[in-house]
């Protein structure tokens, strides 16, 4: 019987081992080597790569950028998603159309969206500066000015993600029994306290799910940087995964890329522990 259970687990275990555990271990091992110099075999250097990482100012810059990026995108896109979901869950004319409009950014491939936004942001010919120009304001170099470039990337991400998260909230809202609303109406509860005392707590599992997804996306982002900024100007928009990519494929430094990856994995491991240990316990599942 135990064998039967093990066999049932086997397919999933094989997939996980092939695509998660083995690469993770290989990355860990790689991070302890230096790449071979002019065709020579790789050289074992222990923790030297980690020492390099600690001294690498670009890495810290990139890590800080990514933190700002996460703080900028996650709460905003979740709040907007919830707002949009509440809005399109109500009875309003053309509801289907509005829902579709909100969801449209999600179905665009990231690269396509980034290409569109590159032209929104273009300083002279772009949509945003034309709009500003109509009000007599001089334009901003959205992606070329290091003080606003990261914010510009954040805004695009929020636009892209909010519609996706809205779908989950919309589904969750529709699964809340209408009796609760009727009962609270009888009690004369205000809409405000109904939302905070009933709706929002019931949405917690969804919020947690969306939060985890947003977090994954904040670390996973790499594609639109290729189009929008290539991490520039002067690393102002460089994010962790893009930095990994640069090291691995532009600089051909696989072992240093592996080192950064290990550090990202460690941080995400800590976040996952926090999620299981704290957030899950405080979340009310139906």
């Amino acid at each position, binding site marked *: 019987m135990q064998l039967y259970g093990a066999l049932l687990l086997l397919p999933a275990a094989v997939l996980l081992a092939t695509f998660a555990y083995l690469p993770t271990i290989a990355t860990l091992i790689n991070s302890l080597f230096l790449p071979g110099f002019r065709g020579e075999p790789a050289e074992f250097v222990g923790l030297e790569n980690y020492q390099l990482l600690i001294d690498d100012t670009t890495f810290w810059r990139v890590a800080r950028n990514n933190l700002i990026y996460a703080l900028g995108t996650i709460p905003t896109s979740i709040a907007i998603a919830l707002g949009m979901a509440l809005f399109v869950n109500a009875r309003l004319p053309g509801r289907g159309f509005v829902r579709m409009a909100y969801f449209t950014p999600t179905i665009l491939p990231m690269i396509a969206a980034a290409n569109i936004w590159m032209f929104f942001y273009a300083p002279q010919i772009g949509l945003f500066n034309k709009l500003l120009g109509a009000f007599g304001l001089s334009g901003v170099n959205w992606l070329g000015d*290091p003080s606003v470039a990261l914010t510009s990337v954040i805004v695009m991400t929020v636009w892209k993600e909010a519609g996706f998260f809205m779908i989950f909230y919309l589904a969750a809202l529709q699964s809340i029994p209408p009796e609760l609303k009727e009962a609270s109406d009888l009690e004369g509860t205000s809409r405000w306290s109904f939302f905070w005392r009933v709706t929002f707590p019931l949405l917690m599992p969804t919020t947690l799910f969306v939060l985890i997804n947003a977090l994954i996306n904040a670390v996973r982002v790499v594609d639109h940087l290729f189009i929008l900024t290539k991490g520039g100007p002067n690393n102002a928009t460089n994010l962790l995964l893009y930095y990994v990519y640069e090291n691995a494929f532009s600089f051909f430094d696989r072992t240093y890329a592996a080192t950064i990856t290990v550090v990202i994995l460690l941080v995400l491991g800590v976040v996952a522990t926090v999620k299981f240990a704290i957030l899950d316990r405080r979340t009310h599942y139906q």
Partner: protein
Amino acid sequence: MRARLSFPLTALAAAVLSASPALADDPVELTMYYPIAVGGALTDVIDELVDEFEAEHPTISVDAIYAGNYDDTRVRAMSAIEAGDAPQLSVLFSIDLYELLEQDAIVAFDDLLESDAEREWLDSFYPGLMENGQVDGQTYGIPFQRSTIVLYWNKDAFEAAGLDPETPPETWDDMAEMAAAVREASGGDQWGVMVPSTGYPYWMFQAFAFQNGHRLMSDDGTEVYFDDPAAVEALEYWVSLSQEHEAMPDGTIEWGTLRQNFIEQSTAMMWHTTGNLTAVRNEADFEFGVAMLPMKTQRGSPTGGGNFYIFNDTTEEEQRAAMTFIRWMTDPERAAAWSIETGYMGVSPDAYETELLRDYVETFAPAAVARDQLEHGTAELSTYQGGRVRRALDNAVQAALTGQMTPAEALAQAQREADGVLRRYAR
């Protein structure tokens, strides 16, 4: 059970048999990755060329895969090699040479030559375009989509600003003055000049430095000279175009949207690759001209663009087939047609001797500017650890243009970074 198994097994056996090279009449299959870094529907052009080649050479089939920009294409090719599914040939950045050598990925064309005709072919290209493809007297890269940076100027805008529409700037001072004049005459609606500073900032900077008589790297790719006073002066001039002359926008200027800026006349001049020439010609609804870049102490532009490489993880038969394909693609007639379709230069003097390109240059003079400028060309920045070294310089250029550092500080920092990276390569 047996009956069920037999079908997939037969299918598998058939697949193995048909994939086996032992069968006669099977064409040699080649895979090639190639990049596009300019505008226009160039994938169609490549597909047509490949079809034509296959029709002429039934024993060779070529799978040409568009793989994005130069960086993406390198990634695709290198990952394919790592995955054991190496392409036989690819078009990659001409300056990827040192890294490809370091990865032990490519073969020298000299080792593949079998006849005098092939030797002649190898010697038929412009020497200036071969510089980035050669190390220690061996040739590893064959020029294909090669460019220099040229100056595009809007004749209508020059006229409106009271400048002679037929006279592009000759010197740095001319360019700054003319750009400022356009800016002023348009009441601030039009910029004077734009030089892209994303994508390939090091490339543009190299042009400025070379015009000031300065080369940024040693011939053997082991040393760079970023913090030289001539280089600092070059970056100062670039920065002054926006800071002092107020003729170029602040911050960085996007490589990808710059052509559109020029087409929509939001700038009167732009520096861009000659590879965009045909796209500009097709889209601009105003009179424009193309000129060599202006000079400080000398004319100059680095060459740029992509070369053919043959990878070494391939059979001899495949390498011969790849050679045949590359020779066919760089044949003067094809090079001429490719140059007309894109604006990239004809890679050999013979290409400009073809009737096709001679006629074209006669009716459309800008098509010859890149070639003429080759006389004042220099190899593109290419060193060991080229990715890191270029990135250090890119950051320095962007830091200076966005006012985060002075040009001298920025270049000193880039020099320190590059020195650190190149330390172990010094001979």
